[in-house]
């Protein structure tokens, strides 16, 4: 049991992201309302973003902005140790992913507005009924 707890403490970031991701997945699978499905999709995306950012973290590392970069000009400054700075690559990927997720969420909302204008409902079962009536 103590081993298991130690395992959870060492990897708690993965536990958090998996719990969040499953909340989002459940909302996408089980909810009936399209807007609720969209909210689930956003929670899912947030979980992925958390996962990426957390694997870039290093203990005792600071934000990936080099201090005194122009102090020793021409590359004669202090040698930069990679262990002192956290991994910038996940941050870059997630930075663009956040903005793109907002933009795609906007498109999804626009589709929902169109669906509502046409069928006066956003409930999935009612939509399916309306579609089969034709």
């Amino acid at each position, binding site marked *: 049991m103590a081993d298991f707890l130690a395992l959870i403490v060492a990897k708690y970031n993965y536990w958090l992201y998996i719990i969040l991701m499953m909340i989002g*997945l459940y909302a996408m699978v089980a909810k009936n309302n399209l807007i609720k499905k969209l909210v689930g999709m956003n929670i899912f995306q947030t979980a992925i973003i958390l996962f990426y950012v957390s694997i870039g973290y290093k203990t005792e590392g600071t934000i990936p902005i080099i201090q005194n970069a122009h102090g020793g000009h021409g590359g004669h400054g202090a040698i930069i140790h990679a262990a002192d*700075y956290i991994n910038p*690559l996940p941050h870059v990927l997630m930075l*663009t992913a956040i903005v793109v997720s907002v*933009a795609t969420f*906007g498109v999804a909302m626009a589709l929902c507005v169109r669906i509502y204008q046409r069928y006066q409902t956003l409930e999935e079962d009612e939509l399916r009924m309306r579609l089969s009536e034709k």
Partner: protein
Amino acid sequence: MKLLGFIIVCLVGGFLLYGTGELPDWGDPQSPASLHLSNDYIEHAVEETQVPNLVTAVLADYRGFDTMFETAVVFCAGLACFLLLRDFRPRKDHYYRHVPTGVVLHFKDNSKRLTVGKEFEDMDKEWVPSDTVIKTVCRMLIPFIQIYALYVVAHGDFSPGGGFQGGVIFGSSLILLAISYNLKTLVKRVSEKVLSILAALGVLIYVGIGAIAMLMGGNFLDYSKLAPLIPIDPGHIRAIGMLGVEIGVGITVMAVMVIIYINIVSEGRHEEGL
């Protein structure tokens, strides 16, 4: 369906949790993600690009091509919202408010119009006067939000920030204007035409900087080839190129956020709404 969904979610979550045993510990400096490419970025980015903010250096220089298409994706999202929702049909009813008395006139006949001026103002059906407190606070806040957005864009090389963040902040300041006053105030100040042109202009700036670098004899987006065009210390030419690219990204993101907001809240009619 709910039970089935719950079982699926539990199964997937269980498998994922089982898989975490193989993943590196939290904050482990020896994790595979931090061993190969990222060390090279951290150690050589400053001498190669002269930009201390590594996130910007990787975003706009090493992965510049990727970021260009991310910007194009944001532009396409704005375009998709516009094409899905925009409704150009003229309104059936017109409402006018007599400013001195507050009397509202309702015109059901589409052919008759009032001239909008100091005496009468054009308004919506579901118009409620904005609260004075909200209006005043937002009027004071919005310029500072916009200055901060410009700061975030301009200092993207040296401090946390960049085009995406600054663009979103600037766009949200315009959205705040639409929320605190009404949508018409925003559309009157920043017309739809200007927003569409700005959204395309941002992508054009990005691609243009890449194309100029190619015309100067380098690779696409090779900022060091821009040195003869800009009279500045050639050591900083990459930082200047990145700043230009970030400005392009910021303009596109700002315009697209506002386009998406306006189209969704008014269902494409650009007059009523929040």
